């Protein structure tokens, strides 16, 4: 057993509230190492909470819907989904893009903000990373669900096959495999490395044998020695450096699935940056969507403060503005290029069969996000929660509009047709959201949802600044 004192060296010190330059606390006043540790660890180690049980049961039920519908699609065929010729890509592809986007904020918060020394990230990075992993994992399922023959999904992997075949490297779908897989692997590593000191804390605080064994195995013998800390910090920084380009690359590559084609409405050079901005936009919206209830349920108000929400709202606003620029430039390029096919599809997007989704997208992503200019909105947690929720809806609509509306009015009018989601599509979308929250619920009960060691670091820094 590692000496407990090494993990919490200054637990006895009372700390005065620390104000940020704008007089705005990253942490609520009166935090000590002990209170931080107690608050966070309690949510994991204390007995069951009814609210949690109800929540996880509910989301498990919704997850079952996901597994049932996926099984049905696998058994019967992708034809039960709302796809046809010409709209051969349907909900699963929109879901991939949406979920991957949600999975973006975690890495941005963890890696980029770490490198930029944005200390406010510490209270939210842990669950944002978990969110990233779960969202990216679910996103990784949808391409398989989308396949006509999902049992051959592994053919996209370059492996020494006795059939002597190899992936076709010009296809962005192959790039996708690497982009998503790399992203998931690096995210998991980054998350796990960050978790190690906290797992040790949990090991030390846990009183039940199985918890001690469980956390003790996971923390890989962490003793909190200075050498451990040094190597940990090194590894963490390196991983942050590795993850940073991935924030840009994953969604850029996903965007290339579309941009590389010649489908009017897909074929656009603005897609990679615009997709990345959209990903950050929806990712931060999802972080807020999760942070607000999490904070209320586990009484983390002193760790996740309005300052966090304010900052996240600002990032959202910035990303949202880039997204709006993307919308504008799409239309501008269609007009400026003189390409009649691109012009036509962009007009049909606004007026055609998919117009409702288009206008929902504009209302949520363009109009609603403007409220974030107001400090009142950014500081009001539940108002912000509502905005974030609607931004998630808007971003899903955006993915839906791009994926489904573009091919429905492409080159030959004779081939034009529409396709909408069937009940199976909706079941999988809703089910995947349920599965996501099911995993999140497991996470907050089994692992520290806020980084203990990093918050402690912050506490110490605040004290020193004083």
């Amino acid at each position, binding site marked *: 057993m590692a000496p407990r004192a090494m993990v919490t060296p200054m637990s006895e010190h009372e700390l005065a509230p620390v104000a940020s330059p704008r007089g705005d606390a990253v942490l609520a006043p009166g935090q000590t190492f002990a209170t931080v540790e107690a608050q966070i660890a309690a949510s994991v180690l204390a007995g069951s909470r009814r609210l949690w049980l109800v929540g996880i049961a509910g989301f498990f039920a919704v997850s079952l819907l996901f597994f049932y519908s996926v099984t049905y699609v696998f058994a019967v065929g992708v034809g039960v989904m709302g796809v046809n010729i010409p709209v051969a890509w349907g909900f699963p592809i929109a879901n991939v893009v949406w979920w991957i986007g949600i999975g973006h904020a975690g890495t941005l918060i963890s890696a980029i903000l770490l490198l930029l020394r944005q200390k406010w990230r510490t209270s939210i990075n842990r669950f944002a990373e978990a969110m990233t992993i779960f969202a990216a994992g679910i996103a990784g399922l949808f*391409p398989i669900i989308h396949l*006509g023959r999902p049992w051959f999904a592994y053919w996209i992997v370059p492996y020494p096959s006795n059939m002597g075949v190899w992936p076709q490297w010009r296809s962005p779908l192959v790039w996708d495999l690497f982009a998503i897989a790399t992203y998931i692997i690096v995210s998991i590593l980054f998350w796990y490395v960050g978790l190690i000191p906290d797992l040790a804390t949990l090991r030390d605080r846990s009183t039940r044998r199985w918890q001690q064994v469980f956390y003790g195995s996971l923390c890989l013998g962490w003793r909190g020695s200075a050498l451990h800390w040094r190597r940990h910090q090194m590894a963490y920084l390196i991983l942050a450096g590795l993850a940073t380009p991935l924030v840009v690359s994953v969604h850029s590559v996903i965007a290339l699935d579309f941009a590389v084609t010649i489908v009017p409405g897909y074929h656009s050079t603005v897609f990679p940056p615009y997709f990345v901005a959209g990903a950050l936009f929806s990712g931060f919206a999802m972080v807020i969507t999760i942070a607000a209830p999490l904070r209320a349920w586990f009484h983390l108000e002193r760790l996740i403060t309005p300052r966090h929400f304010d900052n996240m709202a600002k990032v959202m606003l910035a990303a949202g503005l880039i997204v709006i620029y993307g919308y504008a430039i799409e239309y501008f390029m269609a007009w400026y290029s003189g390409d*009649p096919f691109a012009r036509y599809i962009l007009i049909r997007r606004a007026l055609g069969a998919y117009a409702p989704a288009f206008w929902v997208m504009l209302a949520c992503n363009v109009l609603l996000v403007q409220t974030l200019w107001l400090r009142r909105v950014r500081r009001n947690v539940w108002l912000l929660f509502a905005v974030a929720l609607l931004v998630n809806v808007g971003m899903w609509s955006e993915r839906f509009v791009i994926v489904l509306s573009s091919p429905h009015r492409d080159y030959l009018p004779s081939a034009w047709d529409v396709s909408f989601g069937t009940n199976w599509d909706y079941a999988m979308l809703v089910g995947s959201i349920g599965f996501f929250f099911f995993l999140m619920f497991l996470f907050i009960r089994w692992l520290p949802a806020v980084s203990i060691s990093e918050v402690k670091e912050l506490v110490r820094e605040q004290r020193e600044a004083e």
Partner: protein
Amino acid sequence: MATNGDIDAIRAQLAGRNGDGLWKSLEELSQSPQFPAFLERDLPRLAPLWRAPVNRRDALRLIGASLALSGLAGCGRPPPERILPYVEQPERVVPGKPLFYATSLTHAGYARGALVETHMGRPTKVEGNPAHPASLGATDIFMQAAVLDLYDPDRSPAVRRHGSISTWTVFLAEVADLRARLRRVDGAGLRILTGAHSSPTLAAQLGALSAQFPEARRHVHEPGARDAPRRGARSVFGQAFDTIYRLDRARVIVSLDGDFLAGMPGCLAYARQFADLRRAARIADAGRMSRLYAAEATPTLTGAMADRRIGLPARSIGALAHALAAELGIASPAAAGTLPEAARSWLRDAARDLLANAGAAAVIPGDQQPPAVHALVQRINERLGNTGRAVLHIDTVAAPADRAGTLAELVEDMAAGQVTALVVLDCNPAYTSPLAPELARLLDRLPFSAHFGLYVDETARHCAWHVPARHELESWSDARAYDGTASLVQPLITPLYAGVDRLGFVAALAGELETGAHDILQRYWRTRRGAGGFERWWRSSLERGVIEGSAFAIRSPALRGAVEELPPSPESSAGYELQVRLDPGVWDGRYANNAWLQELPKPLTKLTWDNAAMLAPADAAALGVARGDLLLLKIGDTAVEAPAWPLPGQPRGSIAVHLGYGRTQAGGIGSGRGFDAYPLLAPDGGVPWLREGITVQATGRRMPLATTQHHHDMEGRDLVRRMTLEAFRRDPRQLEQDATAQPPAESLYPPYDYSDNRAWAMVIDLNACIGCSACVVACQAENSSPVVGKHEVLRGHEMHWLRVDRYYEGTADEPRTLFQPVPCMHCEKAPCEYVCPVGATVHDSEGLNVMVYNRCIGTRDCSQNCPYKVRRFNWLDYTYDQERRGTLAALRNPDVSVRSRGVMEKCTYCVQRISAARIDAKKEGRPIGDGEVVTACQGACPTRAIVFGDRNDPGSGVARARANPLNYTLLAELNTRPRTTYLARVRNPGSDAGGASPADGDDGATGDGDADE
């Protein structure tokens, strides 16, 4: 039943033995006391064999074999009689391993010659017989779909008596009783009802039957019968003639609702002749083409091809004919005043062109027009000197209705109790007539009624007896083509079910039980031909598929009498007129159970699986209805509910419906689809196709209609390039200049090198393409494309590899219709290839874009990235159902892979045919010759609009076509560099007709925009 008792007794004895040595058991059986009686009664054809002691073993052998094989129906073997393969290899057809047999397929009584591909005794694909005048190597959709009918699991498998399974022998016993009874009264009370047929042997048989029973009467009922042309001919010539055309002699054609490209016997030949004067090669070489004026009451393929088209209600076509006659100085010019201005200007120009081309023109009236119009048109053609050149008269071909009664007379006699026995041969009057309900009621009361047909259909359900017919591909028979040419029908497969040959059935009625259809057929032709050298002649007739020199002689009847006044045109009558037409897919309902034809998009509406009430878009707007809104069509006491289909070009005030739907006993595919339009036909003769004073109201309800094309406007995109003949003459190279005016597009990827290889390419001549869709069914048959059903078509899941796009331009009232077949373009820079993550769609060394089904994982990125949207995806398991129904699995082309669920597929340029030709050529150590590879669509095309071959061979047809100044690439701006190119459509509306130039083609609204939005 006594006979059953015998069988039961014998069965009991058989069951008592312990089964080893069936032969021995039978030997012993023959000793049983019941056996001679059983044989005498149940197997009368075998009884003589039994009595002759030498042949006793033969009889046993036959009985034993029939017992042993009774469970093995469906094993494909060649029939026992001698049938002969098509030895003389026709030009452009490559027999690979399969054998091709020449035979004939009839449609509404008329024969079209076919070469049927058989694999191991299984007919799988129908090609046209180039030697046959009604095929000329081409096929229509019905011929292509015949093989599906052959394997239809819903075909009647057994003789039925009052709905229960019985046997042919029991039927024969009852026929023997019936004959004995009828002989006493000279056949009084016996009626034989047939559909239209042109079989000389059958006609002789029926004649012999009439001789046996002089008091018996024959009736003919054919929903698509061509009564009006014959009655018209009789009124001007005093005798019925069939009028046929030689359109390759017609520089000007005026169609008065005459759909000679699809709706007439001989339409395949007419289409070829028509196209020969209009194909791009001729336009480019000679700068000339024929001119087609079409007036039509409902849009048809002929109207779609017309250089000058007007839509007029059917009731006004007579006035138009009269006015045309007046312009040409035949009739009084009174009627023209009632025509609208557009029709008058059409008329003036048509008359001027007819006069200028007298002798090299044809005026073609529609079969649906009344006899008076036909009579008048005969006079017009005579006056212009067209008769004897482009317009020819021959004796009537299909079962002359002269001596036979009609169905209405039969029903009248039945109601009066004058009928005691009725035999229904190859027709389904309990469905295909407005008298059907009454007939069904009367049939139930009849002492003896027998139905002979392929299906247990509506009529069979009401007849005491049903005898399953053999399919034409299982039968011996003969038939005549539209020009009278006779040809033989030979069986290519042992009957799949316990069917009976038609000739054998009629022979049985005549008391002749010993002779099989083959012998009956030979006997007839022996009497016609004489015995000398008969065998050689027979052999060559079977091989060629045509009986040489059997075409009817051209007659030159003299006109007589004065010009008849047309019946007064009910111009003033209020309300809508209703035209009832034969369906382009299921015809009069006989093909309703053919899934290929049900799912084939109807050429003009692109509707599948249903019929609809077609009305002018303006009328639809006035009624406040859109596509799929249910209308109540009411005439007298009859009311029918039909979904509305606003159809550009349908004349205002006129509604057209198609027959053939609303069947109740068609089978699993055809029953319960669409609505039955037969009740809307006039019940008592007259002009059956046109009803006046129909009332139409919207019901406020809707039904989904499955169409494969939702959008009909090209949206200003230059997809079907078109120009007038004048514009072409002014600047023949304009398309080439367009193409070269664009900067050469670059590609990231290096070009492929085909310099020492073949480079397959296809050129589709939009001037020749008439949109008939034979290519679509041919493709489906060749490539075993699955049928998906209405529900899946509604969801956009149809699987046709080749589609015929139909666009409109101009106004909704007077649209110009454009057809464009779209197979895979086989792009040089194929957008599908670079996006496939697993390399399942790749370029081959001859430039084909090939699909590797086994490698496909179904990302569908290839389809997303295909600008032509020619790829089709197996969304669900569409072939499993066929696998379970064994007979349909036998239909599949063994040279083509069956695609599994989740796999992309598309047009391959019939790569299996290319492979076959390559293997043949390699074996013989020679290059593949031009024309040696014929794709399925190309082979079926009546007008030879599709050319396929090696682009690298400068002498090949495809290379020549690509050099045509009209050659263009679809969506050339995308730089996909397709191998499939098109020859632009040229219209010849005449100089003073305000002919449109391509520039003003996109003026827009067809009133039928996005129905799906």
